């Protein structure tokens, strides 16, 4: 199998112009099966726009997007739902795909909100709603997950648990994840590829490579660079085929 067949979505020099202003320009990246690609960058650097370009929400873009799957789960950064709709969590879970009860229950349990299943969507707190959004996105077992700040408003312990869950989902379903996050600490430990945006791709590569990059340092400061490098560590053991741990 060549790596090409693992590609789920690929942006070629993609950009979006609105009212003669570039929101983001010249972004090339690709998300592969089982890999987590994280977009970082300051506010207004075009992270969400890039995610929406990858999802095909914007039609008139510069460059091109190649999307190789239609099984997509999306957690948007902002979601405006009209609360005049009578909508329970359970109805919301089946919004874009009909799922059976077990699948819904499993996803809601994973994100820790199974007890809210019959509640009205408008009655949830911000953090609860965020967990429901994540549950909905993973419940359809997508090939590609696009998560735009998926843990905003979630309490501290929940945040760590949810990031672990995201990592687990990526491994178990071998789905590709395009993640947007501000939390450098938590994210970098799990990310395979980092794209640092600032209206354009400022630098990209493995978390370690990006941390060493001068443009990244200029954008986020020396301290952020140290956060990233902390995840650079030597493995002192290897796993044998039998699952045993062997010291180097």
């Amino acid at each position, binding site marked *: 199998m060549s790596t090409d067949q693992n590609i789920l979505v690929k942006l070629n020099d993609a950009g979006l112009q609105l009212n003669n202003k570039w929101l983001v320009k010249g972004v090339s990246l690709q998300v592969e099966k089982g890999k987590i690609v994280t977009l970082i960058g300051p506010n207004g650097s075009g992270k969400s726009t890039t995610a*929406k370009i990858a*999802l*095909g929400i914007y039609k008139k873009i510069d460059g091109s997007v190649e999307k190789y799957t239609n099984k*997509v789960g999306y957690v948007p950064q902002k*979601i405006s739902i*009209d609360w005049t709709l*009578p909508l329970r969590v359970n109805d919301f879970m089946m919004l874009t795909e009909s799922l059976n009860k077990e699948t819904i229950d499993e996803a809601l349990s994973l994100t820790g909100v199974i007890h809210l299943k019959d509640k009205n969507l408008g*009655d949830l707190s911000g953090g609860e709603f965020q967990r429901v959004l994540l549950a909905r996105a993973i419940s359809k077992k997508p090939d590609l997950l696009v998560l735009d700040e998926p843990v905003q408003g979630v309490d501290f312990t929940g945040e760590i648990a949810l990031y672990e869950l995201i990592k687990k989902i990526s491994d178990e379903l071998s789905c590709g994840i395009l993640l947007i996050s501000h939390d450098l600490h938590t994210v970098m430990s799990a990310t395979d590829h980092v794209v640092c945006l600032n209206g354009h791709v400022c630098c990209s590569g493995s978390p370690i490579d990006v941390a060493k990059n001068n443009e990244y340092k200029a954008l986020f400061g020396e301290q952020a660079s140290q956060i990233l490098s902390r995840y650079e560590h030597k493995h002192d053991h290897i796993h044998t085929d039998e699952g045993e741990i062997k010291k180097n």
Partner: protein
Amino acid sequence: MFDDFFIRALVAGIGVAFVTGPLGCFVIWRRLSYFGDTLAHSALLGVTLAFTMEFNIAISVFIISSMIALILIQLQKKTNLPGDALLGLLAHSSLAVGLVVIGFLTFIRFDIMGLLFGDILAVSVDDLLIIWIGGALILLVLKLIWKPLFASTVNYELAEAEGLNPDRAKAIFTILMAAIIAISIKMVGLLLITGMLIIPAAMARNLSSSPQSMVIYSIIGGLLSVIIGLFTSLEFNTSSGPSIITAALLLFILSLFKIKQSIKLKN
């Protein structure tokens, strides 16, 4: 059995209520009540066209309403006017043009009150066929586009991102709106059709906690309104449209006493 005009009206009204129930829910959810009004007002043009060309009323109303919907979409793209101004422009100008054309058609005796407010005496066996076959088609198509239409009503970007093609669903829904107006014009009259769409659905909102239950309550509300309204119309010799809508209003007022607790808490 269909010899009796009242039975015909009842069968027609029940057919209409089955379709306005679910469509009315979408009219409320998508905030389209003024859009429904515009299409209904333009129906008068369709009726005059049908009379001048000796054509079927429902079909010509359907064609004209669909055209108005298309013109609206074009105007929204090409002008800088807000949506409600464009709707008002189209609603009142098509109503006015329709009335002017009627003024020219002196050789035909028009029952304008019947057109505006509905006339149960006018429902023929052909109308019954149009209502039930047309209504079944509308419901079938609505069922087919339900998922993308509902998902994009909740959130457009989610529906688009997850590959449901919400734009196509919206276009098809617009055509369904023109169709329901075309088949229900004789029963309710063109000034009150939107009432038939909105009021039972509004009543249903007060009673329901899920989209499915709202659709079911909306259909039940519509059926009750038609039955109560038509019997009142027969008894007191009132126009069928206003009688049905008044019945719907009474049901809505009753539903206010049963509003779900969660809504009250929020307000």
